[in-house]
Each structure stands twice: as structure tokens, then as C-alpha cells.
């Protein structure tokens, strides 16, 4: 099914997407309609244009491809499925994700991957091709965040400030010749070893497939890995009263 969004209200657009029996949906000229595909499963959705905030919130297995940029809170609390963005995404991308994959070809805004978590076989993955804003992976409790820094010429790691503050699970990979600076106390940093890279090899290949990059050029570089120092960052904070 093909829908031309234009000035259609989000409620009407989302109803159409939700209620069509067809598995494939293509939305043309999307101009900021919010909450597209929230909670959806078993659909393949292509969006041409700019979807609004909370694209794929609580996504439950549907696959979304955006030809354009996405706005804030993309994939908020998503559970399963994939979101592939041929462009950049806004703040809080992948907030509290618990499963599925998000691929952002270019940059992501502030607070990407905040409070991602993992449980047993459900390991969410967020790949950002360019740079990520500040507060990347704050309170991360699980899952994998990868920042590739493609075309990064800043001479610094492609992450902002306060990366991984309060992190207590999961892993952040940063592709950079330079070690990320000013990391908070809760985070341990080291160069990725071959076992680390094995864990994300398929993920990186998928990113390259999606956006036509040569995997050899992406993978064979220095990556830093950020992990939490402890699962219980606030254990010694309290005294029983």
C-alpha cells in the first residue's frame, strides 16, 4: 500500500498504516507525522521524507526504512524489528530499547541509546555511522551501541560529553584513532580485541549492506570499547536509617 502523507494528521496516517492488511507500506512525502508504526509488528514500512518524533516507539517486530532524516525519540522503548535511517536521527534515538536494531547512516543527536537494556536473547543494537551527541548511552543497562565516526575529521572520538554516565551494563564501541576523553568514573575503556570485534562483525556488515559501504574499510580500524565498571554503580551510596 502506498500512502502520500503530505499534511495528513498523524492519527489518520497511523490508522491507515496500522489497519491495512498489506504487509508492505510505503509512505511518500512524510512531513513530520509523529508516532509512525508505534507498537507495530509484522510490517515492512518505507518512509520517504521526514517522519516526526517517536518513530517506531514500542516497535514490536516491524521493519522501517527511512529515506531521509528521522527526528527525536526514534525507536523509543522498541522491543523487536529494525529501523534503518538513510540520513541522521535526532535526540534520544533508541531510548530504553530492549530489542531489535537501529541503523543510522549519519549522525545521531543527544542522549542516543540512553537506558538501553538487555535480557537473555534480547540484545538491542544501535549503530550510528557518523557522530553521536553528548550523553550517549547514559544509564545503559545492556545492549550494544556502535559509533563509527565515518568521515570524522575532528581528531577526537566521535562522541560528545558525558558518554556512558551511569552505565551499568552493555557495551559501547567507538571507531576512532583517538581514545574518547573525559569519560565518567563508571566507565572502563580499552581497545577492542578480536573477540570484541567478532561480536559486532555481522552487525557492521549489515550496516555496510544497508548503506553501501565497503565492510573492509569500516571494520579494519581501531575501535575502543566502553564497558561499565560495575553492575551496581550505587551500591555503596546508602546507609540504612
Amino acid at each position, binding site marked *: 500500500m502506498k500512502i502520500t502523507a503530505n499534511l495528513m494528521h*498523524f*492519527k489518520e496516517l*497511523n490508522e491507515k498504516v*496500522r489497519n491495512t492488511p498489506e504487509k508492505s507500506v510505503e509512505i511518500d512525502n512524510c512531513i513530520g507525522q*509523529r*508516532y509512525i508504526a*508505534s*507498537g507495530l*509488528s509484522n510490517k515492512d514500512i518505507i518512509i520517504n521524507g521526514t517522519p516526526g*518524533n*517517536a518513530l517506531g*516507539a*514500542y516497535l*514490536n517486530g516491524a521493519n522501517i526504512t527511512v529515506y531521509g532524516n528521522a527526528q*527525536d*525519540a526514534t525507536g*523509543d*522503548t522498541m*522491543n523487536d524489528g529494525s529501523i534503518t535511517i538513510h540520513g541522521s536521527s535526532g*535526540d*534520544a534515538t533508541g*531510548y*530504553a530499547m*530492549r530489542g531489535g536494531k537501529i541503523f543510522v547512516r549519519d549522525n545521531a543527536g543527544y*542522549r542516543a541509546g*540512553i*537506558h538501553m*537494556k*538487555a*535480557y537473555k536473547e*534480547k540484545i538491542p543494537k544501535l549503530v550510528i555511522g557518523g557522530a553521536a551527541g553528548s*550523553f550517549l548511552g*547514559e*544509564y545503559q*543497562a*545492556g545492549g550494544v551501541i556502535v559509533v563509527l565516526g565515518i568521515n570524522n575529521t575532528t581528531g577526537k572520538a566521535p562522541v560528545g560529553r558525558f558518554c556512558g554516565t*551511569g552505565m*551499568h*551494563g552493555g557495551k559501547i564501541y567507538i571507531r576512532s584513532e583517538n581514545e574518547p576523553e573525559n569519560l565518567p568514573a563508571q566507565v572502563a575503556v580499552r581497545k577492542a580485541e578480536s573477540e570484541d570485534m567478532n561480536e559486532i562483525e555481522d552487525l557492521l556488515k549489515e550496516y555496510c549492506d544497508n548503506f553501501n559501504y565497503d565492510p573492509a574499510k569500516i571494520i579494519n580500524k581501531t575501535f575502543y570499547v566502553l564497558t561499565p565498571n560495575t*553492575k*551496581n*554503580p*550505587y*551500591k*555503596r*551510596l*546508602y*546507609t*540504612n*536509617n
Partner: protein
Amino acid sequence: MAINYSIPEFEIVRNTDRCIGCRACERQCANEVHYYDPDLGKMMADDTKCVNCHRCVSICPTRALKIVKNNDTLRENANWTSENILEIYKQAATGGVLLSSMGNPKPLPVYWDKILINASQVTNPPIDPLREPMETKTFLGKKPEKIERDKDGKIVNNLSSQLELQVPIMFSAMSFGSISKNAHESLARAASELGTYYNTGEGGLHKDFYQYGPNTIVQVASGRFGVHKEYLEAGAAIEIKMGQGAKPGIGGHLPGTKSIGEVASTRMIPEGSDAISPAPHHDIYSIEDLRQLVYSLKEATEYKKPIIVKIAAVHNVAAIASGIARGGADIIAIDGFRGGTGAAPTRIRDNVGIPIELALASVDERLRQEGIRGQVSIVVGGSIRNSADVVKAIALGADAVYIGSAACIAMGCHQCRSCHMAKCNWGIATQRPDLVKRLNPDIASKNLVNLVSAWNHEIKEIMGGMGINSIESLKGNRLMLRGVGLTQKELDILGIKHAGE
């Protein structure tokens, strides 16, 4: 070793004439207060470990035990009270943030106790609930601004989704993790039987309790634990937790030691990992952002569930509530500074937030002034202690109330305020299997049903006395209230007259 300056808060008094040395107290005390001394051939107690939960007193077969306040005092001083001094000793020894639980215990004013209810005399006669029909059913949710009719003049149903309550009392949010599975089961079963709702809190919904979905409010907090499509669809309503009365402005940390077994699997996090709910939702920095979360939840559940936004009662609560109403919420839940908690920093619990009575009155008034009172229902909690508090809350403008501490007490909680120790001897605020099994959901759910049914009858009697036969006629009916011993400012905020006026 440094000298331990602490003094036991309580003293265990054992009547040795009655004690038969059965050691039941020793087996029942998770705090390991009681022990048998084989050399002395008698039961002894370590007072320092006692939290005065009264488990041993209640189960002692010969009534040999009592627990009294320790009359050993530091030198008396109205400024430097023993409490202030002992807390400094604790922090000087450990460097830790003081952690407490349950509601604010300080002697701050309880306005419920300074408000009196009216009754009819001679004119507009009282109604006897034993022989007249009395309505305590209420509906929560956005009410339509106007009646719409179709071309035949028939009323069009333009009502958005509502919660139907047989009694204006719901069980407030307590997560599985902060309380036990048996406590959750008791609340769920009681809510089903009573035709009201219990609230999952932020710990997800155990798979065994999906069956109680029609009487469940599922919560979405900043940690988003256990939040997924099936969870959102399981409940009758979704509550966004922005704040909690016991700890406004503070998130939650379920320590890794409690995040084990089914608690971890229900939250969908690895066992032993801290479950951290940050203080803010990191996608909410404005009313517009809140509106976005409200609508993303509505979209994900196809507008079938009312959305509740829960906040703590704080200084600007009226303006905040107005923003929430305009943000698209169907129901606003306001939690006063006496609301309970499984764990909160002592200083926050005891010093942050405002009384629910004042918050409720100012929110109701503000929404009326702005002409948007009908857009939202108001639910208040923290703390409602009895049916008179319920009546006063509704007359001040609430649509319904939440009870948490009172519900725990109905299940056997003795308000020892030690939930954060996770060793609740009554099987409520603990995850230790041997303690959890002490709480029998068959009995506890019955106790909850009894409590709410009794309150419901009392509410009918009080309403009948005022000559009011439905809860809807009581709502916001402040003429039925008078203050006693309150300043003009307090009366103005409460919107009531002084007794005698």
C-alpha cells in the same frame, strides 16, 4: 575498633515466666534479633537489630513478648534531638546517604484532621444507606465538552476511554520487586473482586497476573522496565510515572540484590544488575515532550486506554497539572508528601513535597479557573488513611483516591518502615522465598476486600448524612467541608470556610 555510638531504638521485653523456649520468635525474625543461649539456657535478644515489626509479638504462643521504645536517652535537647545526633553518628561512620522507607513520619500538619464534614439536620434530610440506593461508582477519564447528537437527535457516544470504578478507591503503584509476588497477587485479586484497579508500579507485570489485566493499571516509568506491547495492552490504563510523593525529583534504584529470579525476568534485566530509574524521563524535558509520550502510548494502544500521568505534590503543582491536562493526559494522579515508598533517601522523604490536601485543592481550583477540569480526572494519594479522608478528598475535588500504605497495612504491614532492608517479616516488602510465603494471597486479598468494602459503606453513611446519594454530587462539593484551627491562608488554599462560618 571504634566505639559504636548507636543505641537501640527499641527494647524487647521478654516475660521469662511465660516464655517456654519454643524458639518460634527466633525462627520468625528475619532480622535475627532472637537467639537461644545454651549456656544460660534461655532466649536472648539483640535489641540493636529490632525494627519493631511485631512479628515475634504476634506469633508468640504464650504472649511472652512485648517491644517498647527504648527509654535509654541521649542527653535531652530540643534542638539536637536523639534522632538528629544518631543520624550524624551513622553518616560519620559510613559516609552514606541515609535511606528510609514508607511515608514521611515527621509531625507536619495533617490537614485531613483539621477538616470537618457537614451533615443534614431538619431540612434536606439525611439518607439512610441501608434502605436507599447510594451510588459510589465513578468513572475516570476525559469527559466530552458537549453533548453531540446525530441527525435523528440521538446522542452520539463521543466519550473517550474511561476507567469504571465500583468504589472510588484504587491500589497505588507498588512494583514487583519493591513488594513480593504474593503481595501483588493479593492486590490484583482484591481489585478484581472489588471492581477497581491495582497498579503494577514500574517493575513490569508478572506473566501469572496478565489474567487480572482488566483490573490492572500498568506503569511506564523512566527506566521503562518490562514495558513492551503486550504489557501496554494487558492493562486497563497506562500510568506514566513522573514522580512519587515520597521522593519527588528522585528516581528509583532497585539494588541488584533484590533484582533476582522472577523480579529480574519480569523487569527483563539481567539478574543481579541494579535496576535504575533515572530521576527524569530522558525524553521528557517539557510539557510538549510529555504530550509526545502520552500520544505515543495512545497510538501504540489505539486510543483504547486512558493515560494517567502521576506526579508528586510539589510547590507549583497547579501549573504543572494544568500542563499535564493540556498535554493530553486523561487522568492526573497526584501523590502527597506522606506517600509511602520501598526506599527513599531520608532527607528527601522528610523535606521535599507538600501535603496532598493543599495540592489537591489548588489543582482542582486551577483547572476549574482555566475551564479544563472536565478534560481530566484527578486521583490523589499519599496518604489516605480511612474513609473520612476519602470523603474529604472527593469533596476537595478528587475523582478517586489511591491507597498504598493502607493497603499494605490491610495485608499485615506493621509500618516498621524498614522496607529498604528487604527482610519484611510479613512477606510484603521482601523477595526472600521463606518470608514471601508467609503472606497468603487467599487471606490478604480477603483482607483488602474487607477494608475497601467497609470504607465504601462508611463513605455511603457519611454521604447519606450530608443528604447526598451519589459520589458525583460530592465531587468538589467544598461547601460540605469546614476547617478547624486553620489560618485564613490555609482556608483560602483549601477553598473552605472555618467551622462556625
